[in-house]
């Protein structure tokens, strides 16, 4: 019987090959999208999951009144280990702060993520160098480089012996021993390209040096809430014992917390859960696309029901049970879903490279770890049920007495259902189109808005030498300025690429507020083309500028509410600064955060060292200038001049927009997909509807209706459905995009145009699709249509 049913199914599908391919094709495309997103979801949610202690590892973090951090002081971990028996291991790590050159005799690599890891932590996280993890002796540093670096430095190395390398600038003559290479797990929270394994780090450091990550591993089944409480109490008592609490200060202002390893990648307590939200949004999106495709399926299967009604009736009078028929139809749909799944896999494989580059991942369909092996059958079953259960129930429920009478029409009820399903599809499509258009407007606004400075033609040169004092930087500036085409040179302790600044308390006219500070050198404002609102920029002609002059931005002036700020005094870091200028706010951190109230000064003992060199170059002469800088760099920057490395500031700043551009691409793809699938469904549905009305159309034509009237007749109901879809989705799209826009400090007002446009787009597409279908019925000779009765 199965064989016979299979034959019937294939013959049926073949006879309706057009609709079948639309059905299966649409589903395949949706499945491809869904599979990709699901692989991405699995990948993002399974960082470190291979670690056998995954569920028992926690990071120790600290809460301050207005922020949380995972940086902890080194003695704390030790104290935890000594006090709590349920903590089986404690391991600390520290990040190296900057890019470091590592050279062999022949070549140089730059480590960007140097990590210092305690032996215990290396064990906890399976950080295992090639040749195995060795325990260091005493204070030994076991230094390993990632495999590609090692291959660049020692291309002919065959043995496993350690090698000597110079670390940092060659002229600094610092040497170290590389023990070998390591392949870092890219699917772990712990990422590095060079690692030093040590027995203990931060040995000499106290509670005043919170520069370390402390990971603990607990016994399975430990009550984390109570452990957290105990650890917090320990933290308070340690602070008091070590004299870290000032007179009158409340020790409970800062608290220690535990954060499980499984939350570190997506929603760490100390950090943003934006990635988590994006992931959830993407999953919902993938799910919606799949649902739309399933709706198509349901819709078309029911639309074709009349064709199969006779079969149902006949089989029932032959003695078929209803469930046998239900299963028969479900298997038919399962077959189509199976084909769609295979096609979907092929499509996914084709678009995977693009997807990977968009999401900056290396997913592969043929990787066991992605979970597709067990997810695919589940999805297959799921879509078969979603798409198939309703049609299978409707079809198998036909009463033979009714369907065998001839002249059988599927009921009004399923007509309503089909229409509402179509409306749902279009509603989702409208939301995506509107969303896409609004995202586009915001991005356009971000690209065209004045950000307060000009990062173009600014070269950011990497450097490790401290140029905190202006007189130390002066000769460097002088040499660079000699190059024809260089317009301005400066050094600061941060570049405007979204990297945060330090903060400190400052007092003006008795009012104290916390301000961000940026330590700059002469020509900072000129290099970045920042406009002064009042006063003047720093200049060598004012001796005081190198001592106690300050420039505020508008936000800082507004924060204090100072009238006529020029000449007023602002006190901070034990210095009375004189305000010499006010600049326009610059959106150095992009559009999401409001501009920080900031103080700019040349002299700031509380600040960080100035290392970030920026050079403004004449557009026409960029290539020349870069070539000259490269050739002269060792002379210009004597102490770190081995390697001239640079970035264009506008590219670094542009990365702040990358996330939104990624979102835009995703929405673009989603909007295209949903429209594509909805139109496919509409195409087939319109075909079915016009087929059903061929006789009616013929009669109307004989009665004298013209073509236009008939097109109108057929289009009307679809037009109404699309309008309803628009009405439903507008408020939804409005709420969703408003929520999204609220994540920006600087944003557009929601425009009307996207709503109108998405209505126009959907209506146009609908009318075109339906008219193409109706055209066949209208062109047909009415006599032919009426002959068969």
């Amino acid at each position, binding site marked *: *019987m199965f064989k016979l049913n299979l034959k019937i199914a294939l*013959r*049926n599908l073949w006879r309706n090959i057009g609709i079948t391919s639309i059905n299966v094709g649409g589903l395949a495309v949706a499945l491809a999208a869904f599979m990709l997103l699901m692989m991405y979801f699995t990948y993002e949610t399974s960082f470190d999951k291979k670690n056998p202690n995954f569920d028992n590892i926690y990071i120790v973090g600290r809460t301050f009144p207005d922020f949380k951090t995972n940086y902890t002081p080194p003695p704390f971990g030790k104290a935890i280990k000594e006090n709590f028996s349920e903590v089986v291991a404690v391991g600390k790590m520290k990040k190296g702060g900057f890019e470091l050159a590592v050279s062999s005799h022949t070549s140089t690599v730059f480590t960007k993520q140097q990590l210092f890891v305690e032996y215990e932590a290396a064990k906890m996280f399976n950080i295992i160098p090639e040749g195995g993890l060795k325990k260091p002796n005493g204070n030994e540093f076991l230094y390993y480089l990632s495999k590609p670096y090692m291959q660049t430095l020692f291309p002919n190395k065959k043995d496993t012996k350690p090698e000597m390398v110079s670390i940092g600038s060659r002229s600094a003559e610092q040497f170290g021993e590389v023990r070998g290479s390591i392949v870092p797990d890219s699917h772990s929270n712990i990422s590095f390209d060079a690692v030093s394994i040590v027995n203990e780090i931060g040995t000499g450091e106290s509670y005043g040096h919170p520069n370390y990550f402390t990971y603990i591993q607990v016994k399975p089944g430990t009550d984390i809430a109570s452990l957290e409480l105990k650890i917090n109490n320990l933290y308070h008592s340690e602070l008091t014992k070590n004299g870290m609490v000032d007179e009158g200060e409340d020790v409970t202002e800062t608290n220690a917390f535990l954060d499980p390893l499984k939350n570190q990648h997506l929603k760490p307590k100390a950090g943003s859960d934006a990635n988590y939200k994006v992931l959830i949004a993407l999953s919902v999106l993938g799910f919606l696309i799949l649902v739309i495709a399933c709706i198509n399926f349901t819709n078309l299967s029911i639309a074709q029901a009349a064709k199969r009604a006779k079969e149902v009736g006949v089989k029932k009078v*032959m003695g078929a049970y209803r469930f046998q028929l239900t299963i028969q139809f479900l298997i038919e749909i399962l077959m189509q879903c199976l084909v769609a799944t295979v096609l979907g896999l092929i499509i996914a494989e084709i678009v995977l490279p693009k997807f990977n580059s968009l999401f900056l991942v290396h997913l592969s369909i043929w990787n066991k770890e992605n979970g597709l092996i067990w997810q695919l059958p589940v999805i297959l079953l799921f879509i078969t049920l979603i798409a198939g259960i309703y049609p299978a129930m409707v079809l198998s429920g036909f009463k033979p007495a009714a369907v065998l009478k001839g002249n059988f029409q599927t009921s009004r009820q399923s007509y309503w259902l089909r229409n509402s399903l179509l409306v749902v599809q279009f509603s989702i499509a409208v939301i995506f189109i509107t969303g896409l258009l609004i995202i586009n407007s915001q991005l356009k606004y971000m690209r065209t808005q004045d950000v307060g400075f000009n990062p173009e033609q600014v070269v950011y040169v990497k450097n490790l030498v401290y140029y905190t004092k202006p007189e130390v930087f002066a000769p460097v500036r002088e040499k660079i300025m000699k190059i024809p085409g260089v317009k301005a040179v400066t050094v600061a302790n941060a570049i405007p690429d979204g990297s945060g600044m330090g903060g400190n308390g400052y007092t003006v006219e008795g009012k104290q507020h916390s301000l961000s500070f940026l330590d700059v050198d002469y020509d900072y404002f000129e290099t970045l083309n920042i406009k002064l609102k009042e006063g003047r920029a720093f200049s060598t002609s004012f001796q005081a500028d190198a001592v106690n002059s300050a420039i505020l931005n508008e936000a800082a002036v507004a924060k204090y509410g100072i009238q006529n700020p020029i000449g007023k005094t602002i006190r901070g870091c034990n210095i009375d600064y004189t305000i010499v200028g006010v600049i326009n706010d610059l959106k150095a951190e992009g559009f999401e955060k409001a501009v920080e109230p900031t103080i700019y000064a040349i002299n700031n003992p509380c600040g960080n060292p100035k290392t970030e060199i920026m050079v403004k170059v004449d557009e026409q002469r960029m290539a020349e200038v870069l070539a000259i800088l490269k050739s002269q760099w060792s002379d210009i920057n004597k102490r770190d001049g081995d390697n001239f490395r640079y970035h264009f500031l506008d590219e670094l700043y542009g990365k702040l927009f990358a996330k939104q551009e990624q979102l835009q691409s995703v929405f673009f793809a989603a909007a295209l997909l949903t429209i594509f699938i909805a139109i496919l469904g509409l195409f087939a549905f319109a075909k079915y509807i016009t087929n059903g009305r061929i006789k009616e159309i013929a009669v109307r034509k004989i009665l004298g209706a013209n073509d236009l009237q008939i097109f109108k007749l057929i289009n009307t109901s679809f037009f109404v459905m699309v309008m309803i879809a628009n009405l439903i989705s507008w408020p939804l799209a409005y709420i969703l995009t408003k929520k999204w826009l609220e994540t920006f400090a600087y944003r557009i007002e929601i425009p009307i145009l996207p709503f109108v446009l998405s209505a126009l787009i959907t209506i146009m597409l609908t009318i075109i699709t339906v008219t193409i279908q109706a055209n066949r019925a209208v062109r047909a000779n009415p006599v032919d249509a009426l002959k068969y009765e």
Partner: protein
Amino acid sequence: MIELKNIEKYYANKGVKSYILRHVTTSIKQGEFVSIMGPSGAGKSTLLNILGMLEEPTYGEYHFMGEDVTAMKERQRIELYRNHIGFVFQAYHLIDEMTVAENIEAPLLYKKIPGAERKSRIADILDRFNMVAKKDLFPNQLSGGQQQLVGIARALVAQPSIILADEPTGNLQSAQAEQIMDLFKKLNQEENITILQVTHSEKNAQYGNRILTIEDGVIKEDVTVK
């Protein structure tokens, strides 16, 4: 074989009952060949559907082979379809996607008859109906008369004790109709299969041995054919 007592059927529409069948009481014995006649809309098809358990009467008792049909469970009814009742339709109702042989095979599958026996039964019946050459054709490749022959073959292959036929020759030309009627008569006489047919043709009614005439839902006449 069939006992009907006071069968009533009506449709209630906005509180108004429109009766299709009233006080239908009759019995049909194994081996009878009964023709049901009457004007269009009289309730013939409704009566046949009730007899075939495709519709339920509003009132009345119906016993099929001694069993009360109204009290029957769905499963029992389906068992009767599988083993005792064969249907023949005016519009043939062959399944378009199946070949002649497959259409005939279908009821045997639901009866769970093993493959070898299915093959031999199909071969037999194709042979008997002179349709061996047509067995791999699809219904739309056959004439109306041939389609109806397949329809009857399909009803017969499950070896039913009764065949219910609603205007089996309604769509056929008279030569083809005659062939079908001869076949019914033969089945009735040689295999003792009970046959109930609805027909408009006086001539076709004469093939049977009893004629029930229905008008406005009431049995007007019940005559035996000589």
